[in-house]
């Protein structure tokens, strides 16, 4: 009977052999991400900068130049306009007003724009975030990422050994940095949903990594004398079919969402698609080299069934 097999049975790809290339690539990614973060920065959404965002729909194709002209004469600072999806949808972004007095606070901007554009457009979405709230959101977003990474470290440490936890966390950091790199490079809007996407990536990357680790733990018990490099290769190859299958089903769902899910979700979904790809790579090529570098105390996974139970009893 015919079966779609993305990965043939019994692959013997020498992953560990090429780890130096991979480590080099990962180092480049992390360095580049850090550099871009400080030089180019991010295109932060109003969640983090404060300000006003409006999505309007025009009857025919929107005349951006005309709208830009009119809105920039309202005395509310620089007004940014951009098409959103098709050419009848326009995003209007205005920064936080320097004057936050009662008369000129966030509401003033919305009123001014509505006064100018009037009924010629449909107001699909209006968001105003005050400077106080945006400051708090930055803090809680950063905290959430740190807590998530920390929780993963503790969980893996608890289920495996600290070497595994370190490998897993480094691979998460790698994935987060790679995603950040893309956001900075293409100046994609970085908002609260991006943080949600980052956390989801963290979770999927860990998922992949854990499956490989789990198999390594099993093989460590099974083949007591095997070289660590050979053992890591064996484990990755044995789980490769699953790794690819799951990435594909997840990507199928995400690509459907990216294409059909509408403009509002597109950056969010794009971040996750990218993250799944990077996460699949990192669970093979970041977590494993870290384990190679620091080694594993093999006696932890002791021989006798009693000792095995003990090891699991830690979990």
């Amino acid at each position, binding site marked *: 009977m015919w079966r779609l097999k993305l990965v043939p049975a*019994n692959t013997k790809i020498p992953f560990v052999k090429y780890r130096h290339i991979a480590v080099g690539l990962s180092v480049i990614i992390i360095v580049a991400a850090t550099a871009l973060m400080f030089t180019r920065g991010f295109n932060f959404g109003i969640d983090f900068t404060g300000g006003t965002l409006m999505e309007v729909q025009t009857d025919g194709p929107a005349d951006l130049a005309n709208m830009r002209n009119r809105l920039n004469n309202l005395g509310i600072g620089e007004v940014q306009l951009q098409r959103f999806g098709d050419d009848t949808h326009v995003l209007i972004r205005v920064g936080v007003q320097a004057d936050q007095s009662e008369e000129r606070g966030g509401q003033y901007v919305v009123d001014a724009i509505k006064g100018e554009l009037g009924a010629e457009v449909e107001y699909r979405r209006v968001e105003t975030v*005050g400077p106080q709230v945006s400051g708090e959101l930055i803090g809680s977003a950063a905290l959430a990422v740190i807590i998530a990474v920390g929780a993963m470290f503790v969980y893996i440490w608890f289920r495996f050994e600290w070497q595994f936890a370190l490998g897993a966390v480094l691979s998460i950091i790698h994935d987060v940095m790679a995603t950040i790199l893309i956001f900075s490079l293409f100046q994609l809007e970085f908002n609260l949903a991006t943080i*949600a996407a980052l956390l989801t990536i963290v979770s999927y990357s860990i*998922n992949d990594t854990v*499956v490989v680790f789990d198999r390594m733990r099993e093989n460590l018990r099974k083949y007591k004398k095997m070289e660590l490099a050979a053992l890591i290769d064996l484990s990755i190859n044995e789980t490769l079919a699953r790794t690819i299958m799951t990435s594909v089903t997840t990507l199928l*769902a995400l690509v459907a*969402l990216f294409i059909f*899910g509408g403009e*509002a979700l597109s950056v969010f979904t794009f971040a996750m698609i990218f993250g799944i790809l990077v996460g699949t790579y990192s669970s093979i090529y970041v977590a494993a080299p870290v384990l190679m570098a620091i080694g594993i105390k093999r006696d932890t996974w002791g021989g006798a069934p009693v000792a095995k139970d003990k090891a699991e009893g830690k979990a």
Partner: protein
Amino acid sequence: MLYFERWKMVLIALVCAAGLAYSLPNFFPKSSLENVPDWLPNKQVNLGLDLRGGSYMLLALDTKGLEQSRLQDLVGEVRNALRDARVGYTGLGIQNGAVVVSISRPEEVAKAREAVEGLASMVSASQFSALPESDLTVNVSGQRIEVSVTEAAKLSQLQQAVDQSIEVVRRRIDELGTTEPVIQRQGADRILVQVPGLDDPQQLKELLGRTAKMTFRLVSNAMSGQQALATRTVPAGTEILYSADEPKVPYLVERRVMVGGDRLRSASPGFDQRTGEPVVNFRFDSIGGRQFGEVTRDNVGRPFAIVLDNEVISAPRINEPIMGGQGQISGNFTVQDANNLAILLNSGALPVDIAVLEERTVGPGLGADSIRAGSIAAIIGSIAVVIFMVASYGLFGIFANIALLINVFLIFGILSMLQATLTLPGIAGIVLTIGTAVDANVLIYERIREELRSGKSVVAALEAGYTRAMAPIVDANITHFITALVLFQLGAGPVRGFAVTLAIGVVTSVFSAVTVNRLIVAVWARYTRPKTIVL
């Protein structure tokens, strides 16, 4: 692993049936659900504001203003206390967040201190402690007395102000006639307002942003507003207030309040019988009516000002005593203005100014589009995954797909049952769950393949597949669940909706992809007794 006790099978079937039953209402129009009796599942998924359209607002109380007004009241109280005690003093005022006063004669300091300390009352320190604390601390150094408000008192005052504000906000929103608004306290000094399906959020904002402190006061007859401005003299007991409508006209208004807005019993929008212009009709309660009657009787011929949030709405002349406790406010209103003013007067004044910190409004058009796009994406994503699973695993792929279908019903069932909020990112969470739910099946099937390759019998391979795949399945799902928890803590609104569906998805996928799938395979294996399987 393949043997199921009868009661377990029944239990699993019951859970699936319940999931189906609770998700069913979502497939019928809402109106047809009204006839469904309460003992049957009749609740639909609660759509978030980004899907049904509506406004989300985060309001903050002006805590500084609250403290400042408390200090101003305190100045008055200290003045009265010292006067009653017949103690001479100078320099009574507010300095660095405390009321300070210098007692003229050193021998009277003790007496003054006693009088001021008499002003203190007890407040409960916090919600969690029953021990009452004094609301004032009095410090004496030399002839100087400093009275400050304790933290406990500030806290209890803030609590009260938030509670009152929530009440007022609720009354104002109810006047708009919207359904199911959510109004909750958030943090110490904030109020979260969510109003679904509102045609005009502008009106809501205008209503929430107003303090709506109304007073009826006499216009000073010492001089006109213009004169006071020109000569830069403001007689004692008066202040200059401007008219609400353009052009701004100055009025010299007495500080003393004839009747306060808290004496209003009701207000309603209407039209003036002679001019036909929109007005607001109001009625005082009995005390207010008497007060108003007395003042108008004694001041016939003088104008009085109707002041709302320090703006003069109108300043009519008192032509005759107004004894009935009823009146009419006219002030160049539009119909909408008159409507809003009536709502504000009926709902009462906020105890303190409120600012809108954050506002997110989604129009009904965008919400409907998002639902449509999300549903299409979910359906296409599911079909792609279903085809892929059958292509990869054949019959076992179909088993996995049955589990996936049950999974989707369970997610909607739980969402409906818990009345959790489904947002657009929440839909993304469901689509993502569809993609990853089959992960458990992939892990199991790949393991079975391996076991078959190593030469195990069909039954042994199936057993081993389910048993050995459990550890990575559990690990993978616990890490997902941890992420969902962190996300839930982080986000409000849409992002939280993502966390909710992700968390529910983890639970339902483990149940459907492991338990339900295993049951299907077990039943299949029992009836067909396969000698070999192609996987």
